[in-house]
């Protein structure tokens, strides 16, 4: 059984009768069982997957209507609720939380007969960019298991890249889909804010985060987007995409498009291999008829500081409900007064979550808000203005997804500021609500490099067309695992 096929190829093969959903799912599970001990992409596996695949095969054989996923095995980041299954956020606090309802993206995928093969590892509550902050141990980069796979959707990117599933859903608050996709050589996409419902996604920083697919190809991303995008009455922040079909016209290319190269995202600290890959990508796009020129987004300099201030504030509030009374109850209340109990209970959070909660308690507090939180909001609105100006002149923007290559596990774990700075190229899309995508583009010393494209709000279709064009210009080696 060849597991190394794209989502669209999978659909084709099942429709043609060349493979059955059951065989494919069984083979996928077998691969997970044989390699995931090494990679740790999964936090839990769906024991019922083969039975579900068999039911879908039955539907296909009897000529009943079958959903467009035809039993495709998909991994889901463990911060999205699937009814009656554990949703842990890779946290001790939610270790035993069984969701009583489906996230909107999950119900939509269920309707299309996708199979959720397992829940993917992540940084605790999606805070981190290495997966090292998972309370259940880090995921490993399949290109080099000594290296971090990126994060926070590390498990999603690893599972797709190592053929442990056909596609995955991650979530992207400051690069959490694009960063691991870049580090694992997968496609990672963060849509326009509001394009995909967040209902059932456990909030970290709700005003800027989005669910996004991690796939092998840009077309696969468009395929999944067709299923999961659109207005949702359960999420008031969703926008109407008028049932856009993101696959039709995906071959439109970039001829005549104007592309801005973001200067502030290619500073001295950027790895030379990353710089040269980006230059290569620019010249490939130019050869396809696009015009590229350098532009400056001055506010990018402050974006990481603003990002951490805003996300910490929202996290402090979003995670306040995990007070050990309702979740993670693991020691009795007797002998405690309410506040002292909560204080002790919250030691259940890992170090990174604790750090951000403490920041989140401080930066918006009376007497400090003006200096931190309100200032961060100002940066956010200025950055938005700047990028909107840029999109008046340019159809797309380009930059490396991450300025550096995947690094060794443990290398930066004790240096939070150094880790924060790795986010410099990805947070802008979140702070401004713009869509962005990371396309696998190069391998340097056996480690992947991704190129990031950004588009204006609701220009997601254009973004996918350009990403597809860029993707077609390179042939990359297969993951060595």
């Amino acid at each position, binding site marked *: 059984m060849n597991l190394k096929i794209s989502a669209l190829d999978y659909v084709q093969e099942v429709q043609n009768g060349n493979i059955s959903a059951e065989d494919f799912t069984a083979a996928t599970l077998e691969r997970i069982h044989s390699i995931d001990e090494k990679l740790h992409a999964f936090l839990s596996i769906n024991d019922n997957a083969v039975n579900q695949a068999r039911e879908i095969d039955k539907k296909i054989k009897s000529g009943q209507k079958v959903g467009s996923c035809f039993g495709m095995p998909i991994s889901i980041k463990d911060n999205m609720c699937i009814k009656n299954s554990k*949703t842990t956020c890779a946290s001790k606090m939610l270790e035993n939380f069984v969701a*009583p*309802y489906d*996230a909107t993206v999950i119900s939509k995928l269920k309707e299309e007969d996708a199979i959720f093969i397992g829940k993917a590892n992540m940084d605790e509550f999606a805070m981190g960019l290495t997966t090292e902050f998972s309370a259940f141990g880090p995921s490993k980069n399949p290109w080099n298991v000594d290296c971090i796979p990126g994060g926070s959707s590390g498990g999603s990117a690893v599972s797709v890249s190592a053929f442990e599933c056909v596609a995955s859903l991650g979530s992207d608050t400051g690069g959490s889909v694009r960063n691991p996709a870049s580090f694992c050589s997968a496609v990672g996409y963060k849509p326009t804010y509001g394009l995909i419902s967040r209902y059932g996604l456990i909030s970290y920083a*709700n*005003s800027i985060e989005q669910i996004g697919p991690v796939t092998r190809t840009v077309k696969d991303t468009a395929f999944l987007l067709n299923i999961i995008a659109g207005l949702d009455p*359960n999420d008031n922040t969703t926008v109407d995409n008028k049932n856009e079909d993101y696959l039709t016209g995906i071959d439109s290319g970039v001829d005549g498009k104007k592309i801005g190269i973001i200067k502030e995202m290619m500073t001295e600290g950027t790895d030379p291999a990353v710089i040269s890959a980006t230059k290569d990508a620019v010249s490939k796009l130019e050869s396809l008829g696009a015009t590229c020129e350098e532009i400056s987004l001055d506010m990018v300099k402050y974006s990481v500081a603003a990002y951490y201030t805003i996300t910490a504030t929202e996290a*402090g509030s979003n995670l306040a*409900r995990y007070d050990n009374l309702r979740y993670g109850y693991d020691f009795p209340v007797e002998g405690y007064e309410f506040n002292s109990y909560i204080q002790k209970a919250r030691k259940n959070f890992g170090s990174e979550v604790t750090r951000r909660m403490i920041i989140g308690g401080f930066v*918006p507090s009376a007497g400090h808000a003006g200096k931190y939180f309100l200032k961060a909001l100002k940066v956010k609105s200025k950055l938005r203005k700047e990028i909107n100006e840029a999109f008046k002149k340019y159809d797309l923007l380009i930059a490396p997804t991450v300025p550096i290559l995947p690094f060794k596990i443990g290398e930066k774990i004790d240096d939070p500021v150094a880790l924060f700075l790795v986010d410099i190229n990805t947070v802008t899309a979140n702070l401004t609500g713009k869509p962005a995508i990371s396309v696998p583009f190069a391998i340097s010393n056996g480690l992947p490099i991704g190129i990031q494209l950004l588009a204006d709000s609701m220009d997601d279709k254009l973004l996918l067309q350009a990403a597809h064009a860029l993707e077609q210009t390179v042939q990359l080696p297969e993951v060595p695992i």
Partner: protein
Amino acid sequence: MTKIGLEIHCQLTNLESKLFCSCKANYRQFEINENICPVCMGLPGSLPRLNQEAVKKATMIAMALNCSTPEKIAFFRKNYFYPDLPKNFQITQLNIYGDTSVGGSGSIVVGNKEIRITRIQLEEDPGRLIYEGSSSKNQITLVDYNRAGTPLVEIVTEPDFENPKQVREFLNILSDLLENLGVSDPGLEGAMRADANVSIDGGKKVEVKNIGSFHDLEKAVHFELTRQESLHSREIEIAQETRHWDDKRKITISSRSKEEALDYRYFLEGDIPWVTVDPAIQEKLKSEMPESISSKKERYVSKYNIPNQVADVLSSDKFYSDLFENSHTESNAKEIANIITTDLMGLVDTREKRESSKITANHLRDLADSIQTGKISRNSAKNALHEIVKTGKELSQVISDLDLGNVSDESELITIIKDVISEEPQAVEQAKSNSQTINYLVGKVMQKTKGKADPQLTLNLLKKQIE
């Protein structure tokens, strides 16, 4: 000078669903923790879904209290830990970054005094705490989340009240107004709660929290004023503090633990986009608003010539004014107003009696028409009303059951009159010389007919018989 300011929390009890989910706003009919869902329980991953109807109703309240209404409203998070708060933050509104709550400043006239409204905001009610166990040592706290997420409107006034009487008058006007708008039933247990801040000349401001009804609010203010004045007269300093209303003992008690200055870390609730309430929407809302109490009153007086005082009583109570609106015609309006204010109000003077009463607008219309056509006397109408309220039977049925119909047959009445004349020769003689005394004879006839004779007809026939 005495200064009293109020913070009133009013549940929008008449809405179908909670503020951010489709659980019922009227949670009172449920078993404990039965009226809940992932959203109002604040389960991981759930998102608030704004009830647009609640925004409309809250805006109507703001307009009725003459408040400014911003074109764009927003929601904020108020962050604090408390067991009754499922998310450990409350979604509410805030005006410190510009007016973005449903209502800005406004005012309402109470008696001759203008009371300024500071703001009106829409927010979610927390759950309800239930304490069990007798001593404080083995007391346990249980939480019922049925109430969590119920739409709550907070009305904040400036410290413009000078005495408890003004507070009471304001509360009367406010409950009538809320009831008339159809947004809330102030009589429901827990539907109206309040905090008050009270200070007297030379004293510090004292906040009284936890007042569970309008009735108690007036009492609490009265108690607190008396307490402060008594301290003042003994030259004891009045400390700035927070006190709690003890609704069993009806006194205010100093909050034992010092209320820390909580930092709520307010920030914009990103899960709820800004809501536009532009002038066009506001106009539409205005047109959908029920007629105001004052306009009703004016109409009753000018159109139907109903006396001022009767119109006042009738218009301010939604139960009665609805009955009136649905039953009256141009010709019977005065009669119906009369029946309601002189007879019905006495019969259903408590909430329980009102709720169990079987009277409908149709009954009232029938009653008034029957009085006006002489089918039934006013006196009998009163008895019939009593029976209708109890049983809900048709008026015709009640008349025949209780034999209340007027003696309309003239010959029958003349026979009775002749009997009276022969029994009362002295009175007849008197009546001949002094027409005033004829009423005595009318009374005798009424006695014999058990009040079923038409008094006017009886008088006319009597006069003829005597002459």
